[in-house]
Structure formats: C-alpha cells, structure tokens
C-alpha cells in the first residue's frame, strides 16, 4: 500500500513557531538522528531513481545480469525504439484511458457516498462507513482474487447472475443467452471493465471517507441557509459544498491519478501474469520488458522513466498545493 499524506494541522502550526532554543542551532545531534533515515532513503529510493534514468540510456540485458560490468551506451536509442513502436502507443492509450476512467468513476462514486454518509443517521452512517472501510482494508492482491472468482466462467456468481436473466432480454441486450464459459478476461474491453470495477471498489472508500471528513468541517448553517434560500441539492453542492471543499477535491484527484496510473498488482493478478499483451499498461509493460526472457533492462528502464515523468508532473501539482496550504494555515 502506497500511502501519501499531507501534514496534520497541529504539526504544521507547531513547525512555524520560532525555535525556543536558538543555541541548539548548529548542534550536530539532529543530523546524527537523521543520518540512518537519510541513508536508507538515499540508497533505496534516490539512488535507484538515478540508476533507472542512467540505465535507460544503456543497452542492458542478459550479459550485464551475468556480471559483465560494461554497459554499452546507446544514448536516446531506447527511447527512440519505444516511442517508434506502435505497441507503445497502444499501451500509453490504454494507461491514459484507464486512469482517466478510474479517476472519474472513483471521484463520482466516492463523493456521492461521502455525501450520503453525511446525510444518514448516526448509527446507519457508522455502519455503512465501517462496511466501506472493509473494502479499503482488503489487500489489493486478495481483493482482486475474489473478484476473479466472482467472474469465474463456470461457477462464478456474476456468471450465474447473468444466466438468471430472461433469455430473451439477455439476447437482446448482450447478444447471448448462455453465459457459462464466457471469458470475461479474454477481450480487452471486458478485461478493462472488470479491472475498473476492482480498482474503483478498492479506491472509492478513501475518497468517500475524505469527503465526509471535509463535510464535517463545513458549518452546517451554510447548507441550511442555502436550502432556506430555496436551493436544490444539486445547486447546494455546486454553490456551497464544492467551493468549500475544493482543496480536498484537488488533493484527492491528484492522489487518485497517481495511484491509477501505476496500477500493477490488480492487473497482474487479473491477467494471470504478463502473457496477455493486449491489456498492457505502462507499469506492467516496463516490468515484462525487463523480466520476461530475454531481459531488456535498458528498454524497461526507459518505459519506467516515461511513467515516472508523467507522475512527476502530477506530483509537482500536488506538492505545490500542499505547500500553498501550509503557507495559508
């Protein structure tokens, strides 16, 4: 689970208070305390990040893996090869469309559920909230496996449900009456639909709970006043709720975008490995380039760098938002 955060308000306020003991300035102690953490972050995150960029400019394969220390320099060759490959464009299109669809659906469903939790009575709200939490708590791996079982082509519950539809209706809607043996994961369209269902199921709780937390901090009088003035629910949301929660929505959209762009586990499990190239997205493309024989670490790195750059742009937006809020509070 990748978790990201913005500082808690209390901590932020404390940080801006001036130091009470200026004589501590220049003491080596804080640096000593930081040293182990800094080392770990430098060696395990920053150095590999530099490495992946460096590797993307070299031709690296089985010989380097076997211990050949020489890295043949190819300059932008790896990038040229990837960008010139029509398959990369398919992968990029898959990734962007998938991320866009998932962010939009997650935001809509999450916001609606957040609004609903805010309207429900206390007990009901706690109950529904706890249930929603369980979906969030489920590990990506097992959550995906269960959905795979639900969509199993012989005994899966979804297959059974579709078989319960009146044959005529099913025929008219989908062009088939018997769903036994229907391979949900065989065509890219149904595969991505199920994957979207899995990812949205996993990620809407976070949006819902965050929106709820935001709504709780908005004075109820504002909504009442708007309602007294005759505004309908739609109007109240867009004229009162949304502007007040704009910072929350901003952060949620950015975080969801980052998470949905690099989906790996769900895809890997649902596709049963890296054989099905028609459903590749960037992160799994990079992985299979490097780890499916024959290994092409240079090309895999180049794809990883492209993914990282896309995410960096989104991250830049996120950090700017957080910093602006730190300044304001």
């Amino acid at each position: 689970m990748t978790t990201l955060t913005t500082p808690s308000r209390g901590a932020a306020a404390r940080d801006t208070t001036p130091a009470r003991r200026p004589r501590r300035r220049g003491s080596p102690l804080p640096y000593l305390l930081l040293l182990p953490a800094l080392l770990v972050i430098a060696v395990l995150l920053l150095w590999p990040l530099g490495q992946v960029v460096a590797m993307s400019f070299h031709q690296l394969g089985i010989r380097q893996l076997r211990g050949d220390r020489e890295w043949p320099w190819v300059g932008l060759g790896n990038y040229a090869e990837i960008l010139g490959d029509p398959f990369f464009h398919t992968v990029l299109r898959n990734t962007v469309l998938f991320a866009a669809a998932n962010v939009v659906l997650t935001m809509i469903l999450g916001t609606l559920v957040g609004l609903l939790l805010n309207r429900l009575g206390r007990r009901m709200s706690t109950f529904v909230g706890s249930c929603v939490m369980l979906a969030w708590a489920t590990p990506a791996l097992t959550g995906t496996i269960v959905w795979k079982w639900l969509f199993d082509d012989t005994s899966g519950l979804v297959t059974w449900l579709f078989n319960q539809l009146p044959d005529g209706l099913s025929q008219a809607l989908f062009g088939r009456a018997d769903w036994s043996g229907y391979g949900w994961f065989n065509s890219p369209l149904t595969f991505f639909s199920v994957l979207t269902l899995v990812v949205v199921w996993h990620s809407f709780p976070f949006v819902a709970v965050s929106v709820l937390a935001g709504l709780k901090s908005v004075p109820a009088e504002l909504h009442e006043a708007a309602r007294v003035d005759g505004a309908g629910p739609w109007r109240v949301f867009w004229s009162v709720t949304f502007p007040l929660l704009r910072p929350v929505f901003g952060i949620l959209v950015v975080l969801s975008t980052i998470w949905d762009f690099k989906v790996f586990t769900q895809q890997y499990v649902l596709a049963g490995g890296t054989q099905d190239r028609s459903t590749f997205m960037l992160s799994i493309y990079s992985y299979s380039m490097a780890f499916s024989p024959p290994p092409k670490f240079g090309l895999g790195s180049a794809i990883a760098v492209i993914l990282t750059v896309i995410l960096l742009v989104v991250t830049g937006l996120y950090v700017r938002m957080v910093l602006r809020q730190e300044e304001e509070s």
Partner: protein
Amino acid sequence: MKRFALNAVGLLVALFAVFPVFWMISTSLKPNREIFSATPQPVPREPTLQHYRNILSGDLIPGVSFTDFFINSAIVAIATVLLSGLLALLAATAVARFRFRLRTAFLVMLLVVQMIPLEALVIPLFLMIRRLGLYNQLPGLVLVYLGFSLPFAVWMLRGFVAAVPRELEEAAAIDGATRWQAFWRILLPLVAPGLVATSIFSFITAWNELIFALTFISTEDRYTLPVAMTYFFGRDDTAWGPVMAASTLLTLPVMIFFVLVQRRMVSGLVSGAVKG
C-alpha cells in the same frame, strides 16, 4: 419516506463494499460440492475447515505448506516494522524537536520521495540486490520494504512527537535527567501510541507487497504469502476453496490492524486540506 430511501441506498453501498469480503470467507468455508453447485448459496450449508487444513498441512500440493509462507511473511513484516519504527523515531525526533538548516529541505524531500512510483524502481533495485548478494534472501526484501515504508513513517510520527509538550522534557532536564533519560522515560512512553499506529502501516506495506517479492525471491521455501498465492493459484487454476482460504488468511491480519488505525489514516491523509 426520504429517510427510508437514503437508508436503502446506504445498505446497497454497504453491500457492494462488503460483499466480496463476505464471499471470500463464505467460499473458504464451503465444501467443494457447494462451491461448484449450479445454484450458489450465500452461506455454507455444511461449513467445513477442510480447505484451511489442506493448505496448512501440505496435503493439497505435496510438500507445500502455507504455514511456511505465513511465517516468511511474518518474519519480513516484523523485521521491517522494527527497523522502520526505530529509524523513523530518530528522524521524527530530529525534525520535531530541533531547528536546523536542512530541516525544511528534508521535509519536502519526504513528501517528494513518497511520490516516486515504486514500480519504476524494480529494475535498479533488482540489480542492486543481486550485487549485494541478497537475491532470494528475506533480508533483501526487508531492506527494500524499509525504504518504502520509512518516508511515510517519519512523516506520520513527527506529528506525534510534536504533539508531546516540550515542557515535559524540559522539566525532566531541570530535575537532573540527561537528554537520553528524558527521551527514554518521558518522550518514548508518550509517543508509544503513535509508534504503534506507524508500525501498523509499515506492517501492512510489507505484508501486502507482491511485485518485489515476486522478483527478488526465486525458491519456494522463501516465498512470502502473496508470492505463494500467485505462484500456486495464479495460472488458470480453479481450486477456489483453497484459494479463498489462503486469501482469508492473508486478509484477516491486515483488516484487524487497519480497523485499529483507520481514523489516524484519514486525518493524516487529508487534514490540513480544509480549514473549518
């Protein structure tokens, strides 16, 4: 009437969220003939623990017991928690208790490194782990998980350290305590709940991780639970009873821990975003 409609929608949402988890547990307790019956039943008619027995005893796949994978996962996760907790506590104390020149730079870096897509680091870390001789070694996994969990752990823990009034340590210092005693006797007990919450996040990170474990571990005896699941059940297998039993075993610890810390998680993630 309106209340009723809202409650009905609420129940539907709850059902959608919970159903897969319910179905996982329910399937894991059904005998095979119920799992593959033509009309699925919501709850097992004749509940059985046979699937759990099968995967844990090694009857299902000869010589393969999920107990071993469970233990491997636990070793890796616990080692990650201990190391990450210790390093995070030191760093969080530095950031929350001292002003120094690179403090802001460090905080911004913490924020930025959490955005690095870990999926992009598989290749360089794979080569690094091989060069260090840690390929197919559990400590290699602990090392990378430490890197993944540390930035968030420091970020979270610094709030807890900052929330402990400085005056308490100052009072201890006046009473003649050394700085080490003030840390050990005053700060640590007060930060303990925060340390527990932070540890749980590190635990979940390590416990759930699939890609790196899949890439860095090559022999069966060292598989972690997620790797074992994709390896033994990933290939068009339809042994759904054992699969669901193993899934339940992997999910339950995470769920218990998650419920314990979810409040902090939400407040940590978005607080500061809204000003009331």
